[in-house]
């Protein structure tokens, strides 16, 4: 990336203007806000609340699995916990956190005064709390909430689902609308509002990865909306999309769902790649190795993500040629992903590295996400998948890519940009405590799951055979420790907002990008005069 400069008078003016156009006071500031920084903050807090909510459900699951047999909860409630834990974490925690980061950072990174569509931005956030209120309220209804897994396979979600399924469907509709509006906003902002001189190949990688993610969102969220609509009409209005008795096909559900579902997993990891590509160079004090190859690798992953959906369904009785096609396409994704991991390592190579909390999370991301990638490759091998399918090996795999992948990158981003957001440095000591507690407990939590899966423990079952008891106890202890560790993060953030050492405009020596040319905290209105990018 080229050097980016900004003439200081503009920055001075911005800061000066701030006194006249600061944030309004009171609760209405947050309800009516069209400011990208306010909306970013709302998204991030919402995401954290959902992270704790989904986490509490994970604690219920791990408490029940602490011992074999049924101790604490009914199997049906266990199923609701696994289902809603997945839905809340995917649609409530990870995706809104990325949208929050996009809101905060993209305008500052490309030198724009705000997002392109500020009023739509307000809507796309404020419909989310309603969606999750609907979803979570269904847990308290007669017959319970969704209990068919977050993948809501038919006929579990049609013939055998609880009466509250319509609420699940509407909640997904609203979440989908929110995501699509957010994606449109991101694309229009990046395409039309870049500062003069901010050419495509000068865009920070976080902006690039989000642009590609936004296109994925627009391509697949409507397909998810269609799928839940078919579930709705099958269950309540007598259609037979997925009912064989009426000429439909339950296997077709899985094809349509995973046509959405596989690009969805890249929606949850591509922005992470952008975050790591910002943090690793900053703390290695070297420019990113292979910028252009990073852009092309991200784009190829996005294209390939549409050609691999059926690797989730190897055991449905597909013909051999289809199994081979999806197996090889899936393995092909390891190539661009490998390019990325190589570039991060090459960026660190002979850099003068320091290990502040964001870098600790970034390095942990690279190692642990790669482990998740490798277990993904194992699952991609069709004959091996027949053994791994629906076991804890799968659970271990996707938690490595989503928790130590997506969530670790979000934590890294929070630590990296907190000084810019709050104007104060966070407590490095507490940050390191948070990191080490998290990274140790998360491995105690998820690593033994690989062995449970290989030994044949099925997922989504509240009880298990006695030989799995010891390992499950270790896993549960890791789970409780990881859950508790996240309160350290909450403490760090609150402490940082309330005060602390004042942050300079650029608190990280090696950081690059327009956002560091703004004072800390970033003024309420920034770049009202576009900076000049050379």
């Amino acid at each position, binding site marked *: 990336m080229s050097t980016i400069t900004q003439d200081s008078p503009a920055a001075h003016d911005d800061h000066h203007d701030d006194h006249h156009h600061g944030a309004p006071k009171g609760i209405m500031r947050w309800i009516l806000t069209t400011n990208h920084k306010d909306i970013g903050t709302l998204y991030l807090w919402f995401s954290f609340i959902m992270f704790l909510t989904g986490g509490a459900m994970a604690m219920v699951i791990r408490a029940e699995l602490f011992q074999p047999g049924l101790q604490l909860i009914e199997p049906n409630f266990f199923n609701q916990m696994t289902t809603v834990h997945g839905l809340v974490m995917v649609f409530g925690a990870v995706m809104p956190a990325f949208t929050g980061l996009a809101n905060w950072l993209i305008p500052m990174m490309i030198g724009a005064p705000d997002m*392109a*569509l500020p009023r739509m931005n307000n809507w796309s956030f404020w419909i989310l709390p309603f969606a999750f209120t609907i979803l979570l309220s269904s847990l308290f209804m007669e017959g319970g909430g969704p209990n068919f897994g977050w993948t809501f396979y038919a006929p579990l979600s049609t013939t055998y689902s609880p009466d509250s399924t319509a609420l699940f469907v509407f909640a997904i509709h609203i979440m989908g609308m929110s995501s*699509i509006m957010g*994606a*449109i906003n991101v*694309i*229009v902002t990046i*395409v*039309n*509002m870049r500062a003069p001189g901010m050419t495509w190949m000068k865009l920070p990688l976080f902006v690039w990865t989000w642009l590609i993610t936004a296109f994925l969102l*627009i*391509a*697949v*969220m*409507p*397909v*998810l*909306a*269609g*799928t839940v609509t*078919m579930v709705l009409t099958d269950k309540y209005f*007598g259609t*037979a*999309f997925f*009912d*064989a*008795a*009426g*000429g439909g*096909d339950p*296997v*077709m559900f899985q*094809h*349509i769902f995973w*046509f*959405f579902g596989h690009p969805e997993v890249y929606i949850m990891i591509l922005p992470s790649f952008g975050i790591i590509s910002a943090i690793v160079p900053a703390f290695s004090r070297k420019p990113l190795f292979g910028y252009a190859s990073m852009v092309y690798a991200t784009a190829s992953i996005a294209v390939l993500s549409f050609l691999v959906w059926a690797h989730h369904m190897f055991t449905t*009785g*597909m*013909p051999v040629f*289809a199994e081979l096609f999806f197996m090889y396409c899936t393995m092909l994704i390891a190539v661009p992903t490998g390019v990325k991991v190589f570039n991060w390592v090459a960026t660190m190579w002979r850099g003068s590295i320091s290990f502040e909390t964001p870098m600790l999370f970034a390095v942990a991301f690279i190692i642990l996400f790669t482990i998740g990638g490798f277990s993904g490759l194992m699952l991609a091998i069709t004959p091996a998948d027949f053994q791994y399918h629906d076991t804890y090996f799968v659970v271990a795999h996707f938690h490595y890519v989503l928790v130590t992948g997506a969530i670790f990158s979000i934590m890294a981003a929070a630590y990296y940009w907190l000084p810019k957001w709050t104007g104060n440095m966070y407590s490095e000591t507490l940050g390191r405590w948070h990191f080490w507690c998290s990274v140790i407990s998360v491995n105690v939590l998820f690593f033994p799951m690989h062995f449970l899966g290989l030994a044949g423990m099925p997922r989504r079952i509240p009880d298990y055979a006695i030989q799995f008891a010891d390992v499950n106890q270790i896993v549960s202890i890791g789970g409780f420790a990881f859950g508790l560790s996240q309160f350290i993060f909450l403490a760090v953030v609150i402490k940082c907002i309330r005060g602390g050492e004042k942050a300079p405009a650029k608190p990280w020596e090696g950081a690059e990008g327009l956002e560091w040319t703004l004072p800390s905290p970033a003024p309420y209105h920034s770049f009202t005069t576009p900076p000049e990018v050379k």
Partner: protein
Amino acid sequence: MDQAQSKSNRKLIGMLLLGAVGMFGFGFALVPLYDVLCDTLGINGKTQSTASVYKPVTVDKNRTVTVEFVSQVQSDLPWEFKPEVNTMQVHPGELIRTHFVAKNLSAKQVVGQAIPSVSPGQAAAYFNKTECFCFNQQVLAAAASADLPLIFYVDPDLPDSISTLTLSYTLYNITDKGYVVEQGAAR
């Protein structure tokens, strides 16, 4: 925001919205697309849903194919449903007549629909039914029983790698479903 930018914003939003709406439609287009693909590629074990006409072909007396019959009843259907014979040896091209026995165990009239599936899936295209109870809904009065006929032949072009065919019928209760199963739908 100046005029030119808001114009180009609106154009881009329009295109993106169109894309989103188009993808919503594409989700539904996947339904017929799926049936067409399964049909043309002969995958998924779906057999044809209308009676095929028996073309007198030379019966391949030198080759024997094992045909197995499997029946399943969904839990909400109070029927007993079994093949007359579980397995038979047939020569490709030979017209075979057999039947399944269904009995309504309840005290009410019940409508059932049998859905066939052939395994391995690639063999489905070579399994021809000239008459099958699965082409129609089956109505059984309270406590009534019926012999449900099936007449079929195996196409002599059946690949040599396949020596055993399994024909599975799952019987569904569609009494109050109001399904009108169109003739010609892939089944």
